[in-house]
């Protein structure tokens, strides 16, 4: 006779659940409901754990590492010289760059004779370890407290110089 599948215990730990009969107090349910409502009511007067996110923002840790920024110097010129030390330090290989030579007349734009014409960070690869910041000999790259904005495409997470370089308006404001 084939044994019923329900009675086979492959693990050897199968136990049948016993159905105990409830007592009268359990049967009327009312004390249990009152107990549950008590817990719910207690939470009304507790401190809220959530915040209204876009309006309110949580305080970040002082060492929080978020989106990168390519700094400008005190005259508003780009500091990055495309030396490639951030890219070689990057454990996730998220950084790529193409260097170019500064032409005469661009001294206000770029601080040194070499600059990065293309500088891209793949934010999907980046692990925000901050090693690029540590490797930079020119104090050009920093990790800010900003978050990476969500996007629908993978390409949208490859941040070029348009998103990474510190906007000039910010610089002007800081000088003020």
């Amino acid at each position: 006779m084939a044994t019923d599948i329900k009675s086979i215990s492959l693990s050897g730990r199968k136990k049948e659940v016993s159905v105990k009969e409830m007592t009268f107090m359990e049967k009327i349910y009312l004390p249990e409901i009152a107990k549950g409502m008590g817990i719910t009511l207690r939470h009304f007067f507790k401190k809220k754990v959530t915040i209204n996110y876009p309006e309110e923002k949580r305080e970040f840790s002082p060492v929080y590492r978020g989106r990168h920024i390519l700094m400008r110097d005190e005259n508003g010129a780009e500091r990055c010289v495309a030396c490639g030390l951030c890219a070689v330090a990057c454990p996730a290989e998220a950084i790529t760059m193409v260097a170019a030579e500064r032409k005469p007349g661009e001294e206000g734009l770029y601080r040194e004779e070499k600059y990065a014409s293309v500088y891209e960070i793949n934010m999907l690869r980046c692990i925000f370890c901050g090693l690029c910041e540590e490797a930079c000999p020119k104090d050009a790259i920093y990790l800010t407290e900003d978050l990476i904005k969500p996007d629908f495409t993978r390409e949208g997470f490859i941040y070029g110089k348009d998103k990474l370089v510190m906007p000039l308006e910010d610089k002007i404001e800081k000088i003020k």
Partner: protein
Amino acid sequence: MPKVTIDGVTIEVEPGTTIMNAARKIGGDLVPPAMCYYSTLKTSGGKCRVCLVEVTKGSDANSNPMPKLQASCCTPVMDGMEVKNLTSPRVQDMRQGVVEFLLINHPLDCPICDQAGECDLQDLSFGYGVSGSRYKEERRTFDKIDIGDKIQLHMTRCILCYRCTYVADQLTPGRVHGVIDRGDAAEISTYIQHAVDNEMSGNMIDVCPVGALTDKTFRFKSRVWFLKPFDAHRDCEKCCGKVTVWMFGNEIYRVTSRKNVFREVECDENGQPFFICNECRYDKKDKNDWVIEGVRKKEEWSVINQGKYMLDTEKVIIDADPRLSFGRKEDRKAISMVNLKVDNKQE
């Protein structure tokens, strides 16, 4: 044959060999560094003073120590000579001082310099230099000069080792550049900006221990640690055609001569160095121009080993019945993936 002991290691060498070459025969860490000495360029050496060593015993005949430190690149060995390099605190102290001197006028533009990563001075200052500088006066600066359309001279970075002038003297007929002025004002220059347009002039770039002479076709193109060096050769009438190509994927970024552990051009069995011509160096940047032999091994500590970009690997096709990996028809039915489309033309 004279026997010489360097840092406790004894070696027998030909008479007339310098301490430097005896040390290089032993190899390893005890080889003194060299900024100006270049074994394949005659009369080079004796200028930079980083290779100074302590001779604790002159010879068997005269066992007195030499009172001052000796330049190992131009001091011949004597029988029974005892030399201290790494084991001598005096030498280490001196070398720190010499590096400080070399760095007095050297700009700190390694992030911009194309030589960074394969620079002798960078290694030396990493090994012996101090992080700060005591020099308060103004550094001497020069504008960058084009020597021909392919070589860029950054006189500011030059340490006046004279290697490039020896290349011009010994490899090319009719030298047009040299060192003008004296002392602190000395500088490498082509006389009234003459262009150096000789077939072998590009070797000046390879012998330069710092980034004073750089390849303009490679200027700011990439960094050496992003590239992968491969040994390659081609038939060239003007030179040996044996080079190192520096590649990023399948693209050749630059071509240099093959350099050994002492950062000098490799030689063939007869001691003929593999200097390369300008055509190989500047104009042959297509992968099809070269027969690639294999990856060039660099020293273990070199940053060049960081380059991870390899050549495309070819697809391996196993010469066997394609059904071999496909299995019998009746067996296939049991595989859960049987409904997946399999691209097999023999079906």
